[in-house]
């Protein structure tokens, strides 16, 4: 991926030395991701043996047969529920972490996350309009409504920030404004029109859940992830140039306005696609980029691939925890990411404080 064949200077030693080994981190990440998915699909409340899980998957991939060994119900649990869910967790984790890393650098704001552009709030309003008020008359799925809401919200943010002058801090302020507006709209609709059962369902979705994952979500998410990841990696060098602000970037040969537009649209598209299928899973996009930066250093050619892999592994395990810890009851994955993420965040901040 990042064949950064750097001539490591002999003087490098101590913790900084780990910065010089991007391939090691990337390779370790790929191995960890494959292993995580392989193990995570075997874990679950339904009592299905590891061997059965693997024979189901092997059968669907065209290697071997399950005839007479695994019942159709168990086959369905593994192939239609667990595997797409685990894969969607990986896609969401990767996408959210990459979006967070890109936005933090582009907006020069360590508190930026994939939802800073109002995408998640717009998505929740769209979803609520479909679920509670039946907008779309059944032709529109929850995901569809969420995606349209997310795109509307992002368009509003871009319009607002453009008319306010288009600078970085205006983008963030416009995002905050949109977030407040759409959150208020969502609450308004839920409080005035929804019954208790619907409210609970909506709340679950708002907190982020991979429970409804199907193969179509996995394919759509993967396609957008690959596209956006390619765009971001193509801009890795350009993102480095933003370290000292947009004027400095411009004097290093970057088309600031064009780069900002391309990267904001790319990350918003990916976030919208992920939020539409899994809700607003918080904290992954905020915390993981900081943690990964401590490992790889700030260069984006190294940071972004490792971020994607770390995010994927992290969310696969957090979702496994979310669906098993109180089984058969499920905890929204967004709740677990925050419960785990906050102490991890504090630890990262504490370590960087000591490094200064």
């Amino acid at each position, binding site marked *: 991926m990042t064949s950064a064949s*750097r001539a490591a200077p002999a003087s490098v030693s101590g913790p*900084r030395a780990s910065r010089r080994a991007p391939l090691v981190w990337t390779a370790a990440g790929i191995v960890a991701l494959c292993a995580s998915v392989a193990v995570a699909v075997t874990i679950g409340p339904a009592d299905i043996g590891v061997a059965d899980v693997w024979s189901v998957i092997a059968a669907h991939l065209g290697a071997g047969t399950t005839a007479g060994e695994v019942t159709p119900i168990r086959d369905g649990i593994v192939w239609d529920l667990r595997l797409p869910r685990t894969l969607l967790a990986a896609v969401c984790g990767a996408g959210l972490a990459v979006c967070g890393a890109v936005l933090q650098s582009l907006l020069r704001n360590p508190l930026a996350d994939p939802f800073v552009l109002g995408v998640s709030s717009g998505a929740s309003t769209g979803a609520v309009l479909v679920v509670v008020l039946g907008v779309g008359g059944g032709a529109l799925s929850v995901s569809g409504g969420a995606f349209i809401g997310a795109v509307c919200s992002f368009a509003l943010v871009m319009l607002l920030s453009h008319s306010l002058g288009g600078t970085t801090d205006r983008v963030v302020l416009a995002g905050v404004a949109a977030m407040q507006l759409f959150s208020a709209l969502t609450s308004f609709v839920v409080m005035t029109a929804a019954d208790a059962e619907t409210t609970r369902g909506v709340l679950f979705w708002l907190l982020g859940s991979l429970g409804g994952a199907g193969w179509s979500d996995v394919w759509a998410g993967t396609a957008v992830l690959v596209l956006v990841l390619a765009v971001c990696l193509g801009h890795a060098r350009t993102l480095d140039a933003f370290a000292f602000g947009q*004027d*400095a970037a411009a004097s290093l040969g970057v088309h600031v306005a064009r780069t900002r537009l391309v990267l904001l649209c790319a990350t918003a598209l990916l976030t919208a696609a992920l939020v539409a299928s899994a809700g607003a899973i918080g904290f992954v996009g905020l915390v993981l980029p900081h943690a990964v930066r401590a490992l790889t*250093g*700030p260069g984006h050619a190294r940071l972004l691939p490792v971020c994607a892999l770390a995010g994927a592994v992290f969310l696969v395990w957090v979702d496994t925890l979310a669906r098993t810890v109180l089984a058969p009851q499920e905890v929204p994955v967004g709740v677990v990411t925050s419960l785990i993420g906050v102490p991890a965040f504090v630890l990262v901040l504490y370590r960087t404080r000591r490094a200064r």
Partner: protein
Amino acid sequence: MTLRAERVSRSTGGRLILDGVELTPRAGAMTGLLGPNGSGKSTLLRLLAGVLAPTAGVVTLDGRPLDRMGRRDVARRVAVVEQQTDTQVELTVRDVVRLGRIPHRRAWTPASAADEEAVTDALEHTGLTGRADRLWHTLSGGERQRVQIARAPAQQPRELLLDEPTNHLDIQHQLDVLALVAALPVTSVVALHDLNLAASYCDHLVVLAKGRVVARGEPAEVLTADLVAKVYRVDAEITPAGPAGRPHVRFLGTLPG
């Protein structure tokens, strides 16, 4: 031929900040840009860097208008050092100097051996090799400015623009920074507030007031008591007591008006 501003004007919000300014820095020399706050020094530098477009007139590089060249092509020729910069990112000294290679690198390709060599040379040249792995945040203001200037040779420009690079530095670092710039084999334009520093280090001075050039030439021709009184409203005594007989300005007090 080099960077050249031809009758450039710039207005923002209906206010004229630069009014038909001509500037042709002498190749290989250090040109000092003087003038009170708000006289248009920073704006002129931003026009020269191509970061800002003039509302009238044109900036050319080897005769080609900047706005018809790609941003990357301009950045390979012209490097900029801003007056005070900061970053949220945890960068080492080497990382900051490496930023200078960005205009020379292509997307999707890692840094080449030539890139790393230019970075190592720039660190060596600015005496920063021993501090290459220090974190930017742990440096003093003077050291940070030195690192920013070290980024310039890594960028391998032929023109270097500096906006008040000595601001907020102690006197040792002020002298140090300007000596470093003077020793670089580039055509430089540097905005300065300190008239004595400008007189000692610059080969050529251009004085701006209210967006217009009011004087230009060798330090000894430009820095007169008359000019200081007219442009800065300050009473000054000027003697050839500077290094190598260059003018030295002693301020006596402000003038009314």
